[in-house]
């Protein structure tokens, strides 16, 4: 029996579940809006607008739980990276995923009491949660109230630039979701990491 760590208290599990549901709603409705078509609509345009607006606003409030929770609890510590040697650590972890994992090597940064995320997880979570998602919120809220957007910026419509940034960040989060889901199957067993998001206990691997 491997060692278990209580990494995911109830507030993180509630936040994460809501985050997953709302992100899926946003991705599906967002794709439907971006590729709206008279002949083959994924979701009716007006319904997609409603879903996207609701889920976007709800996700912003849900993000507050994550942001404030990380400020007030120890969980925030997991998102702080040591700059020194970062490149080496990232390379070690990447090599493990691409090679060492298949050779049965030991993980270079195993889950432990003091380490919840490996360096690759850490940097990707920081980029997504502290850069891509806030950019999505900023551009999304701006597009919800377009009268506040600058009419022209660098020769382009402010709305156009906001939309392009919003779409690019949305795409980045969609790609992250695929990788995140796959990497989650690389726990002790393919389902053990998913189980940890239900009971809060993560098995060491």
């Amino acid at each position: 029996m491997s060692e278990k760590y209580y990494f995911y208290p109830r507030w993180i599990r509630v936040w994460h579940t809501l985050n997953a549901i709302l992100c899926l709603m946003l991705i599906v409705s967002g794709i439907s809006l971006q590729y709206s078509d008279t002949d083959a609509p994924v979701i009716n345009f007006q319904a997609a607008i409603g879903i996207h607006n609701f889920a976007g606003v709800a996700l912003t409030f849900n993000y507050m739980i994550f942001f404030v929770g990380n400020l007030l609890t120890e969980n925030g510590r997991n998102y702080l990276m040591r700059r020194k040697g970062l490149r080496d650590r990232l390379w070690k972890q990447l090599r493990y995923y691409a090679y060492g994992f298949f050779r049965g090597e030991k993980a270079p940064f195993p889950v432990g009491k003091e380490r919840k995320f490996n360096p690759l997880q850490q940097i990707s979570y920081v980029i997504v949660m502290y850069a891509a998602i806030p950019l999505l919120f900023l551009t999304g809220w701006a597009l919800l109230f377009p009268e506040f957007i600058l009419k022209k910026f660098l020769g382009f419509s402010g709305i156009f630039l906001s939309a392009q940034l919003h779409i690019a960040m949305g795409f980045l989060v969609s790609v992250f979701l695929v990788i995140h889901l796959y990497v989650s199957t690389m726990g002790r067993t393919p389902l053990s990491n998913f189980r940890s998001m239900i009971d809060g206990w993560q098995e060491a691997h």
Partner: protein
Amino acid sequence: MKLKTGPGYLILLLLVPLLFLYAFNLPVVQEADDPQELIVKGTENNPFSEENETCLRCHGEQKYELTDPVTGMVVRRPMSGSYYIDRDVFYQSVHWSFACLDCHLADYGEYPHALSLRFEPPYNCLDCHGYDETYARYKFEDIETEHLKSAHYTQTNGEFSCWNCHNPHSYQVLAREGKDIFEVVRNSNNMCLVCHGDPFKFGLVSDIEPTEIISTHNWLPNQRLHFKAVRCIDCHTEINDSLLVSHNMRPAEEAVKGCVSCHSSNSILMGTLYKYEAKESRREYGFVNSAIIRNNSYVIGANRSKLMNYGSLLIFGLTLGAVLVHTFFRIRFSKKHHNE
């Protein structure tokens, strides 16, 4: 002491520049008019401007004086809005170079005007512009045909003429000159709102109960933005491929109401509002319906970047491919380790 990088750096790095996009929403400097416009309009360039003053000394003022020829009594009366001509507007309009008596009977030169003049039918557009090679590109004859089919004509017992929308004393061509699209929209919609935004003026041309514009368009999300960016006629006319601006107004129940009609790659806006731009412009920005983007506008669903489309497909494909390859090797090596 360990040096740690917090996520705060990323937030500062990425979000602060964006504040310039939203928080400091400074007014935009108005761009100069089309430099290709060589004709210089204005009072000083109209050879009949002095002659026109005979009319404008009354019709160009908000109040006029009326003298009783018997008693000599003089009274000041307000000039009716429909007989008032704003000099500044007239000398910038399409008919800026005209003398008043080019279109109005010479008898108007006498004052007080004879009652019989009231019964003279005014010119309509085709009287001057119809069946003339000089104006062939404007297709006035086709416009007339469209107008006769439109709700404006059929629902007003034929009383609705070109003048109801296109005031000959103030009309300016905008759509055909590639002017700023927002200015084109504003001018076009103002034309509609003269009657549709004023129940009294609406009643002057129609017996139908006027409708309230804002509440009947409540279904439209971001209504204000739509009204600023799209002309009424883009949804309320039947598209005509040969005319730059369709004139066949359809009854309200036949108006475009499906979002996807505009918000899709085959957006009808390319055959209406952006028809001139789509025809004239040769530059491509790598976007579907790029004429919209060239005009500093953006329509969700209608402006997909071709580059971003292919790029995202490639990245997504590579990601899924990597996941599949990794899964394949995981299964293969897991069996190998198991057998060992």
